[in-house]
Each structure stands twice: as C-alpha cells, then as structure tokens.
C-alpha cells in the first residue's frame, strides 16, 4: 500500500477549497467531531438491545427498519433505506460492499479499515467461513450463511442472537454486549 504524497495532496486540497470559499474550516472540524465519535456503533447496539427486550419493536424493525431506527433518533446520511436481518441458530448474516464501502453510518458510524479492504471485499462473497476464521469465528457446519452485498442504497444491519444467560439484564446492559462486528456479521456475541 502506497499513500506516498497523499497527506500533502490533502493539505493542498484543504487550502485550495478554503481559499475558494467552498468549505469553512470550522465545518470541517464539526464533521470530524460528528464522525470521529458522536455517531458510532453504540447507536446500533441500542437498536439491537431494544429489539431483544421489546417484541413489538422487533416486529417494527423487521417490517420497516428505517422507521424503527428513526424511533430511537438515528437516521440520515447512508442510512436512508435500512433493512435489519436477524441471525438465528440456522442462518447467519454477513454484510459486505464488494464494489466500494457502503455501510450504515447512522447506526454503526464510519466503516473500519478492514471493511473497505480488498481482502474483505473480495472474499466475503466467495469464502465467508474463511473470512470469519480471520475473526476467530467458527460457525456450525450446518448453519446457512447469507451474505448481503450492498450494491444499492439499501443498508443492512445484522441483529445478532441474544447471548444465553442474559434474561436478567436490562436494555442498557444488553446494549453493552453488542459489538460493531456483531452487527456486520463478523463476530458472534
């Protein structure tokens, strides 16, 4: 990987675009603040935990994920058209974008580097069990794997299986168990 000269290009772009009046520096800072912390996978964890504790919410999430996610205050750019897919003992879901880096920003934040890497994008649709092994995950041989290649503006959120022995936990404690990778499908909880 060679990003030789790229940091200098970015610096030049920023000064040109500011000089031309196309961008305000304080807006750039605000965007970084938004996506380097404010918006992240804790949003998605909230959605998942709610679906575990509230059967009616779960039904709404299945029927219209965009609206159900908006109920909790999440939506907007790169989450305009959401679909939630639930893992079960029989079926495991895995999300990829083989063509670029499509990812549900409002619920998961920005995609991790590996999600955008050729290694993941090339192999997720061909050898998902091999990809899962890179994450230390082994599924039962009989479990069906459904890979969702995000080729349009539909964004997929995986709802992991609720861990056993969590009957006594409330929504907040459950949300703390939900990982980003679990909501992409590269981890189990």
């Amino acid at each position, binding site marked *: 990987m060679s990003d030789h000269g790229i940091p200098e290009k970015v610096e030049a772009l920023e000064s040109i675009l500011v000089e031309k009046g196309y961008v305000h520096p304080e807006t750039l800072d605000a965007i970084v603040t938004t996506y380097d912390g404010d918006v992240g996978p804790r949003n998605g964890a909230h959605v998942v935990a709610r679906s575990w504790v509230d059967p009616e919410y779960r039904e709404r999430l299945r029927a219209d994920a965009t609206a159900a996610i908006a109920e909790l205050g999440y*939506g907007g750019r790169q989450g305009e058209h959401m679909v939630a897919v639930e893992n079960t003992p029989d079926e495991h879901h895995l999300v990829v974008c083989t063509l670029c880096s499509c990812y549900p920003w409002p619920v998961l934040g920005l995609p991790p580097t590996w999600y955008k890497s050729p290694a993941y994008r090339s192999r997720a649709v061909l050898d998902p069990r091999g990809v899962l092994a890179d994450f230390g995950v082994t599924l039962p041989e009989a479990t069906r*794997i459904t890979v969702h290649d995000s080729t349009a503006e539909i964004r997929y959120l995986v709802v992991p299986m609720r861990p056993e022995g969590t009957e006594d936990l409330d929504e907040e404690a459950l949300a703390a168990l939900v990982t980003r990778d679990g909501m992409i499908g590269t981890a189990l909880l």
Partner: protein
Amino acid sequence: MNGAADLGGMMGFGPVVPEPEDERFHAEWERRILALVLAMGAARRWSIDAGRFARESLPPPVYLNSSYYAIWTLGLERLLVATGLVGEAELAEGRAREAGADVRAWSPDDARAAFAAGSPYTRPAPGPARFAVGDTVRTRVLNPTGHTRLPRYARGKQGTVERVHGVHVLPDSNAHGHGERPEWLYSVRFSGRELWGEAADPTLTVDIDAWESYLAGPA
C-alpha cells in the same frame, strides 16, 4: 465498468485484519479528507454515483495500491477538475489562482442538518414492478464502460427475488448526468454454487440489490 473496485471473488489479498471498535482513523489527513469530501456536498456538482465512478475509474494499479482514504483523495481531485471547481494547475501548485465558482459553503449547522436529513433515493413508481418475491430471474451479462452496480461475479446468473425495495434512482444513468431514470430495485438471492461452481460452500447464499434493467426472466 470492469474496474479494480469490483473485487468480489478475487483472490490473493491475504487475511482480513480486524481492528478494535474505537480505531476509526490512522492519520490526521484521513480525518481531513473525509471532512473535505463530505463538506463539498454543499457544491451540489456531483451525485453519490458520480463520486463512486470517479473512484472506481482510477487505473487498477493505482486503486489497488491505495488505501481507502487515498482513493477518496484522488477521486475528489478528479471531481473538482471535471466540474471546473478547481483547475489542474491549482492542484499542482497547491493554492488557488482564481476566485471560486458560485458555491454557498456549509456552516457546521448546515452540514449537520444535511447529514441528519440524508438523501433518500426512492422515487415514485414509473409503472408496476415486473417481478415479485419468489420469482426466478437471471441477471443480464452487461459490460458497460460507464458506471454500474451489477458486480462481475453476479452477471448472467440465475437467482430468486428475495425482497422488493421500491423504486430507486438508477446509478448507471445518474452517475453520468443522464437523469435519475428510477427503476424497481430488488434483492436477488443466488446460491453459492450458481456463483462459484460445484466446489462452493453448500451453505452459502449471496444477495445483491439489483435494478430491474439488470434482470431478465428465467432463461
């Protein structure tokens, strides 16, 4: 186009390297290019599809040898030059030589409002959907020189309609300024064997989202 971005099914890239959840950037310039690309939404000079085409049409050796934010950097340069917002000489010199075009830059609140609103891609139906859930379909064999969202690995393959998503802007047209030409959009499910042959994982199915013009009835 059959560019380097269309990676599904390629081999030889090595293992996937997981990262912790709080590791979002690896250098300060990555934060800045993310912010620059998003902030240039204010200019309204290109669609998301045109942005993707600018990146995927980078020469394959460049695309494959660049990190993702480097690809964004090179893509933004192309878009700025193609739309006349920045001159090539300005990029080369690293400073503005002429006054900017008519762009109302976003304030922080404008940016936050734009991200919160998003940009829905659904449009009114031009007619009834041709396919329904459960229908058998076959993807067309297309090799356009322009933008498409039909990956190479899923061309000419038989699958089943899994979901009907409504009518969405067609990227193949919108990327090139030829209008939104909205079409019905479907999730189509393929068996691993249909895509990859007999050695495929028998438990694997792959869903893609495909516009109606990508699909034919069963062969």
